[in-house]
């Protein structure tokens, strides 16, 4: 298979590992963009989810947000983000991609956080209340630790999705790993195309595996995480 040889040669070429268009820079751009999008999404989703989860209201919001999130296609989000970015004078590239990724990441994070808090055994919460815990202490010391595995599960879904979608940023002249794919397609350079695809796929799988490990490690002693 000559393509496999071509791809191997592409990876072996030192020129592809150097400078602002090199693999390390593109990987870092990809991680930076994805990490920032997930972080902003957590900052937006957490207060809402923790509040409603703790007081135990707004379940319909959680379910509807999850459904709406599923109906929002990634390319459509990018399409909506582009005029917004232009209106704000931020142009092409990084910003419209970030604006597209944040709403993509919010639904799974919000829904899982809400459910994670809600699902904590009410007897445990009542026991903590009976022991004189304040509401904020209950949230911080009981509900969040017990709900952590489920919360991380939502962040995992969001992160894998964001890593996958950050690839599309290259369509609006962004950097990151999508560059190799979009350029490879445009120039019909299949070695670059396949190499870029492999890198993105690898990054997505690494993200998935890392979060799975984190989820298992986050479970408080005595609690088993099934997955």
């Amino acid at each position: 298979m000559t393509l496999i040889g071509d791809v191997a040669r592409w990876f072996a070429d030192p020129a592809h590992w150097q400078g602002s268009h090199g693999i390390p820079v593109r990987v870092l751009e990809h991680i930076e963009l994805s990490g920032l999008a997930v972080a902003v999404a957590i900052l937006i989703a957490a207060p809402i989810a923790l509040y409603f989860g703790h007081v135990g209201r707004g379940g319909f919001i959680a379910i509807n947000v999850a459904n709406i999130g599923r109906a929002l296609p990634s390319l459509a989000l990018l399409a909506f983000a582009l005029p917004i970015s232009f209106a704000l004078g931020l142009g092409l590239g990084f910003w419209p991609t970030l604006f597209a990724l944040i709403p993509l990441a919010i639904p799974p994070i919000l829904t899982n956080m809400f459910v994670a808090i809600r699902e904590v055994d009410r007897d445990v919460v009542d026991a903590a209340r009976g022991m004189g815990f304040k509401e904020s202490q209950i949230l911080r010391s009981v509900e969040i630790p017990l709900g952590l595995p489920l919360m991380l599960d939502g962040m995992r879904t969001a992160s894998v999705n964001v890593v996958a979608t950050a690839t599309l940023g290259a369509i609006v002249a962004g950097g990151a790993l999508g560059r190799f794919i979009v350029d490879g397609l445009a120039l019909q350079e299949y070695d670059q195309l396949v190499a870029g695809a492999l890198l993105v796929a690898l990054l997505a799988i690494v993200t998935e595996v890392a979060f799975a490990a984190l989820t298992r490690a986050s479970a408080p002693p005595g609690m088993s995480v099934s997955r």
Partner: protein
Amino acid sequence: MTPGEPLIRWEWVAGHTDELTMRIGEHLELTAIAVLVGLVIAFALAFLAVRLPPLYPPITWTAGILYTIPSLALFALLVPYTGLSLLTAEIGLVSYTLLILIRNIVGGIRSVPSEVRDAALGMGYTPRQILLRIELPLALGVIFAGIRVATITTIGLVTVTALIGQGGLGYLILIGIQQFFSTPLILGASLSVGLAIVVDGVLVLLQRALTPWSRVA
């Protein structure tokens, strides 16, 4: 997006109704093929997994890997072999439906209470009859939930196939991005979201029609 350009030029929309209808049709066609082929493969693998339970983990594991690979990457990996074709788009789209469908079909069948199965067995049903007449109808609710998620996800993913020369409404989005013209951009994106909502509604109605007993509870 040049300054002063309105987000949507309605006269462009009025002049392109034929193209819009065509793109919507294309979008639905790409989605329908993917979900139907996905269902056939998922049912085959799910039945296999129900018959031979040790096969279930490797099947979901493989489907899980396919699901994790970003769509654009999967399309890109296929292009050198199958070109910028409908086949490339469909292989990718079908791959993404498998995990959700297999999980829900197997989960639905397994959720049938064992007493029900035993009763059927006692009444002389063969394993095949139990599967087709007892387990599948009872699992239909869960299976339909999977079909809804798979279909909505596919409608979204179809837009990405514009990059490999397919795309339905995604084509409008791509044209909008390339020409800095917000009208097709916004229109393509809105219509694909609208399409997902409408199709989901149709599936809910279809499910109600197919499982009349679920309303009597």
